[in-house]
């Protein structure tokens, strides 16, 4: 029994150690500069104001090249936007639709049920406009890259002048944290690039933090519910197991 408890607690400790995505951080370019996001950790929740600001950064900066295909406009209500605000954002996009009764394809303003459209018609068009690179969809990037949120933040803030002996390709940029350091995405953020309504300073660091928080939400919109339900489930199953153990001991006390 004691051995079993030891094994179980070892598994738990391992599990809890894994709660910090930084534990598996990519090492290229050294330690990641910022991994301490408030939604990381057992009780972590999304930083709501940062989510809203991150949406703004995505729409005004990233959306020029990057899609967000798994997020529908109706999902934005989870960021604290009113239905009307989400609708207004949707209507700002032209969505291809059709065919209509005449058999023609057409474009119409977005609806709440539409997903964020990709800025490019197809991959070839994306590569043609981006020096041969295909800007990845941002719905799952924090989940699909080693280093997770910390890595995306590092990429957004990791632009530097290349070392003197570094042969940088035509139209490419140097990034401290990108594998191989040569990245097709030009530095996306510069100080004061957006104007935050809530008065937060639009520094590169703040904008990167906000948009990474937003991307984390886009990748795991269920995160807060998952942790909240998980806590209740663990309390319930923990108590149930304790009761079952007590009955078990009681029943077995009869055995000779």
């Amino acid at each position: 029994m004691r051995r079993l408890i030891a094994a179980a607690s070892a598994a738990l400790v391992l599990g809890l150690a894994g709660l910090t995505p930084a534990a598996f951080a990519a090492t290229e370019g050294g330690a990641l500069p910022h991994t301490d996001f408030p939604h990381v950790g057992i009780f972590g929740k999304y930083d709501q104001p940062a989510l809203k600001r991150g949406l703004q950064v995505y729409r005004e900066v990233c959306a020029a090249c990057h899609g967000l295909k798994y997020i529908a406009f109706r999902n934005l209500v989870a960021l604290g936007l009113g239905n009307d605000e989400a609708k207004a954002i949707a209507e700002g996009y032209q969505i291809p639709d059709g065919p209509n009764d005449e058999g023609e394809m057409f474009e119409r303003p977005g609806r709440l049920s539409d997903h964020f459209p990709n800025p490019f018609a197809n991959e070839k068009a994306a590569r043609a406009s981006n020096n041969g690179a295909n800007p990845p969809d941002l719905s799952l990037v924090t989940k699909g890259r080693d280093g997770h949120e910390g890595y995306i933040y590092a990429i957004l803030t990791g632009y530097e002048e290349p070392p003197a002996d570094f042969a940088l390709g035509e139209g490419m940029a140097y990034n401290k944290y990108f594998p191989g350091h040569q990245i097709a995405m030009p530095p996306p953020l510069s100080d004061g690039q957006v104007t935050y309504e809530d008065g937060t300073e639009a520094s590169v660091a703040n904008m990167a933090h906000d948009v990474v928080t937003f991307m984390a939400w886009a990748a795991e919109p269920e995160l807060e519910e998952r942790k909240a339900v998980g806590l209740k489930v663990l309390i319930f199953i923990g108590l149930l197991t304790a009761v079952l153990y007590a009955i078990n001991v009681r029943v077995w006390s009869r055995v000779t």
Partner: protein
Amino acid sequence: MSTPVPRNKVAQWIEYRLPVFSWMNHNLTDFPEPKNLNYWWNFGSLAGIMLVWQIVTGIVLAMHYTPHVDMAFDSVERIMREVEWGWLMRYAHMNGGSMFFAVVYIHIFRGLYYGSYKSPREILWWLGIVLLFLMMGAAFTGYVLPWGQMSFWAATVITNLFSAIPWIGGGVVEWLWGGFGVDNPLLNRFYALHYLLPFIIVGVVILHIWALHHRRSNNPLGIDIKSAKDTIPFHPYYTIRDMFGMGAMLFVLFVFVFFVPNMLGETINYVEANPLQTPSHIVPEWYFLPYYAILRAIPDKLGGVIAMLVSILVLFILPWLDTSKVRSARFRPIYKQLFWVFLADCIVLGWVGAQPAEGVYIVISRICTAYYFAHFLIIMPILGKLERPRPLPESIHEAVLKKRGPAQPAAAMEKH
């Protein structure tokens, strides 16, 4: 064992036509189990619970999943985002696979420690190995379904192993693919197989339990049941203990499901499969890592595949490789030590399987692979002859009494 007649009229009607009540009574209620089983004997029932868990969550997922290369990844994301409690079903299934393997591996090592594979339980043991193979098939086909990068490249690497078969290898691989590469036909058949295999597993589990109930459970002393005094009925003693075990296991499983659902998975599987872009290193799930290490330890492709297969097939002849007359490691002072060395060897193989195949890792994987086979093929046969086992207790009952000590009023309670 009595076969009570059910009191309920409807139950009597059924019992007369199909004796389900006496069957259940025989196999679940009155069934005599050794009274000295420890908690390591919980893991068989836990494996059974995980099988049901995987089938239930899996069927729910199958209702929402689309097995097509253009839609599979999106349909999984749809389950995660749009389907009510879809994220819970998927994380429960994904981590449930790991939990299943974890309890099965503990179950197997329990068998190795207490000599549960020895006569008269060889066929019970074989059926267990068949179950392990079937589980590996189910796990592998399931891992391919989300059609992420690692799904695709794992399918590519593993199906390509068949090309090592001399002469017909290339044809076999194309036959498996249903084409000239890993593509939609493979995804379709893997989906079909992933749905089929669990039910074959259920069938073999029934045989496994049949063999178990025929020759009864082994026990920590490894000695046979000699009289009714050595046993206690399955219910309530082991039903309550198995329920407690289930609670404890679910607690661990839920920690993973709700708090670190992706810890055991590969990050890159959240990038959709891209046949034109190979990931920097391809690793299987943790439960396949030791075999992967053995595969890569052998410098020849065909040799590696054979070694990997033999690493499990060797378990079939273990009942005869182990020449010791004594089952339980408790009474085998040297085997008791070497068991832990072997376990450590398997864990190191798992660790090295996750490392890149270069430099010192290759050396480590070769040493550990050599030791893995030496354990079965050299150590087990020789040790059984050389080792002097400690004396076995007369009976389970006697050993249990001795353990409790004279302070217990054992004699007074022995009347019943």
